[in-house]
């Protein structure tokens, strides 16, 4: 390359004018189009307010939502109860009723408490012998001053009872009971160790130890500077600690909120109300095949199957029915469209029906069906049939009759006319001419196009379902609306992907057999 002299370069350039001296328009067309596109994208950026939307986006939540796809959270709250702690799980915890997980260790103590029994109203009030603090009243709260017998304090009691006050053990009737209370909770959230005792929380994470003092109902203060995994919005306010995927712990002035995340789909087979819940696979198998009947009305196998189908959290039966609806919608809609479009396309094809007016009429009808979108048909038929697969079938049927009719009539117009002539020359009736002269030529093409639309409709049936036309679309949409059931969304997505994959392959296999060539290559 470097050996070329200047004259040789000139000479090459003059020989290939078309390459080296292109017209101005041709030369700058591509960059100009590029510039226009970039300018347009800037316009779109401002039109849609993309920058602002992304800034205001809730990205923290996005991480949680994404994590919800494949994991679940256990959410115990540890409340300060005077000198003791209360561990509470939400009512519908994935861990079932009264959970006692291994990662949450409680240290309990037996204490004697004096229970104040009011004979009249039968309402008990507790006072502890270990502490002067009435467990109902929190120090610093209004109405708990020494000897405070004002009405604010008596609002704790039932009306008409005499109010027990600190250092005042002259309450009507007291009884001393022993009960076990939690004095200390240790929680392992991933690699973090959280230790909670009344008025103090200590956290060990990544080799750092954070000590937090809590003044109940008042303030939360860290003893040292906060490490980077902890944050506090204002002095004395709640401290939020993030432990990556494992979860978060938020220390508040009246409780500690723990969000401990676990990988997997919880209670996928049996929900917490099921007798099979929490049992290992072998235990369930053992029960199903040899155990005594749990429910005398039916066998264990039937009970287990029933529990799986009607799992409250995953709703397997409903999801499967909806998925089947989607499949049925695509199948029946495309099949009907094929059956109707087949004869109509013969009328619309110029070379088969030599009547221009009729041709045009049918072609415009196809265009109409096609261009009134599937969405519009879906919305109308949802009103006609009510929500459900019939609306979806009709919508797909109407749209695809148009599309397939157009494609079919185009294919018919491109056929080889000699075969028809041959059949006609031996004196066959018009119908037979079509049957033996036309159909064998176009049938593989027709079938292949229908299969293609079947496949594509399996996908689009999901989305028209969301406007009420039946199928899994609506279920997906409802699961997403709540923003709490992303694992159900993930489950349905997996099912949809599997369905699409299976039907793609079936349709591809049939198509490649019909067209006589191998289309598949990974």
């Amino acid at each position, binding site marked *: 390359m470097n050996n070329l002299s200047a004259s040789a370069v000139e000479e090459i350039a003059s020989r290939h004018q078309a390459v080296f001296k292109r017209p101005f328009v041709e030369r700058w067309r591509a960059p100009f189009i590029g510039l226009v596109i970039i300018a347009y994208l800037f316009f779109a950026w401002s039109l849609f307010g993309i920058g602002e939307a992304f800034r205001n986006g809730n990205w923290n939540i996005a991480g949680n939502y994404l994590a919800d796809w494949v994991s679940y959270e256990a959410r115990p709250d540890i409340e300060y109860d005077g000198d003791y702690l209360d561990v509470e799980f939400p009512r519908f915890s994935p861990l079932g009723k009264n959970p006692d997980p291994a990662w949450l260790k409680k240290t309990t103590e037996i204490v004697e408490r004096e229970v104040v029994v009011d004979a009249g109203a039968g309402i008990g009030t507790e006072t502890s012998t270990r502490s002067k603090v009435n467990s109902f009243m929190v120090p610093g709260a209004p109405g708990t001053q020494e000897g405070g017998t004002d009405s604010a304090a008596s609002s704790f009691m039932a009306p008409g009872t005499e109010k027990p006050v600190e250092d005042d053990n002259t309450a009507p009737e007291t009884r001393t009971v022993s009960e076990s209370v939690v004095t200390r909770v240790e929680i392992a959230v991933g690699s973090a160790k959280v230790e909670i005792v009344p008025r103090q929380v200590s956290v060990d994470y990544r080799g750092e130890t954070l000590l937090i003092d809590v003044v109940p109902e008042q303030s939360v203060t860290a003893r040292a500077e906060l490490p980077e995994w902890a944050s506090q919005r204002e002095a004395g306010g709640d401290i939020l600690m993030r432990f990556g995927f494992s979860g978060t712990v938020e220390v508040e002035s009246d409780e500690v909120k723990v969000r401990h995340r676990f990988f997997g789909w919880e209670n996928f087979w049996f929900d917490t109300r099921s007798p099979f819940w929490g049992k290992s696979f072998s235990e369930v198998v053992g029960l199903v095949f040899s155990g005594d009947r749990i429910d005398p009305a039916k066998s264990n196998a039937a009970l287990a199957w029933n529990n799986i189908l009607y799992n409250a959290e995953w709703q397997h039966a409903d999801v499967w029915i909806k998925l089947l*609806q989607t499949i049925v919608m695509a199948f029946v809609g495309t099949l009907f469209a094929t059956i109707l479009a087949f004869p109509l396309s013969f009328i619309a094809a110029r070379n088969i029906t030599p009547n221009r007016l009729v041709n045009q009429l049918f072609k415009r009808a196809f265009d109409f069906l096609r261009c009134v979108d599937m969405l519009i048909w879906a919305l109308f038929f949802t009103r006609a049939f009510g929500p*459900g697969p*019939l609306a979806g079938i009709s919508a797909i049927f109407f749209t695809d009759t148009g599309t397939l009719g157009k494609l079919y009539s185009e294919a018919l117009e491109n056929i080889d006319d000699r075969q028809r002539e041959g059949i006609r020359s031996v004196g066959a009736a018009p119908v037979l001419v079509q049957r033996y002269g036309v159909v064998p030529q176009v049938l593989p093409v027709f079938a292949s196009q229908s299969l293609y639309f079947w496949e594509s*409709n399996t996908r689009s049936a999901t989305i028209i379902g969301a406007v009420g036309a039946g199928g899994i679309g609506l279920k997906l949409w409802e699961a997403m609306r709540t923003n709490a059931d992303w694992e159900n969304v993930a489950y349905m997505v997996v099912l949809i992907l599997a369905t699409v994959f299976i039907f793609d392959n079936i349709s591809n296999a049939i198509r490649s057999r019909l067209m006589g060539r191998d289309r598949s290559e*990974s």
Partner: protein
Amino acid sequence: MSTAIPSVQRSAEGRLVERHWQEMLFKRRLYTWGGIFGLAVILAASLWFANETNAGKFFDRLPHFFDFIGDLIPRSGAEIWRAMFDLPSPYADGSLKYNYPDGRFYLTENIYVPEYVYKMIETINIALVATLIGFTFGFLLCFLAARNLTTRRWLRFFVRRFMELLRAFPEIVIAGFFLAILSLGPIPAVIAVAIHTIGALGKMFFEVVENADMRPEEGLRASGGNWVERVWFGIVPQVMPNFLSYALLRFKINVRASTIIGAVGGGGIGETLRLSISRGHEAKTLAIIILLFATIVAVDQISAHLRKRLVGNQAFEFGRGG
């Protein structure tokens, strides 16, 4: 039709051939009728199932099949145009129902864009931006998925599976997810449609690339061009018309897709249409449908025309879901 001419006397070989042919014919017919029978059984079962799980039963609701036409008859023909162009209506009774000028989108003091036209433009823009994004990423990915340009099998495999995933992932889930994060607006729709477009265009693109003429690439390889140079100067010029043509096809599809996504909460004309139908406002519904119909026909025609100019009369009407 009649299968043989029986009167002809055949030799032994001839009879063998005849018998063999008869057997094949029988087998073929068996398959055909068996297939049709199987299809009919599946169809009947499907129809039964669809009817059972539908909210209304088919035969009960059949008389209402054309009810929607009743939903499309406005109080007067002129109402449609008033609704479409946001002109004041004589039926205005102070409620929002006939207050068409309320939706006007003012560009300046006096010039306004009617509400539905504005929404339509928004939907077209969603489709356009999504197509541009999809084109860009599909373009970048397709060369990695083509057998003739990427020799590493694992890379090809990975890129193809990735594009398949993008294609098959339900758009509605992507839209719903971003709706949860970004709140209402057209952006979730753009992202959802764009992601699907990347997968769909990528697949079409790499099929084009695999059919490209490799001689320019070979020439560049001989003169020491690296991979990027070979692709950029050897392959891109010859596949570009096809790429653009596919992109135009996709744009046409995306206009429909963004309308549908709009109807499930992505903004644009789809949402307006759904609301109008559910509120039973005939004139508005009809105005939107006419607008939508006109737009789709126009986009179809423009895209078909441009494609014809780009690649001649190649018939690839195929492909909607892709």
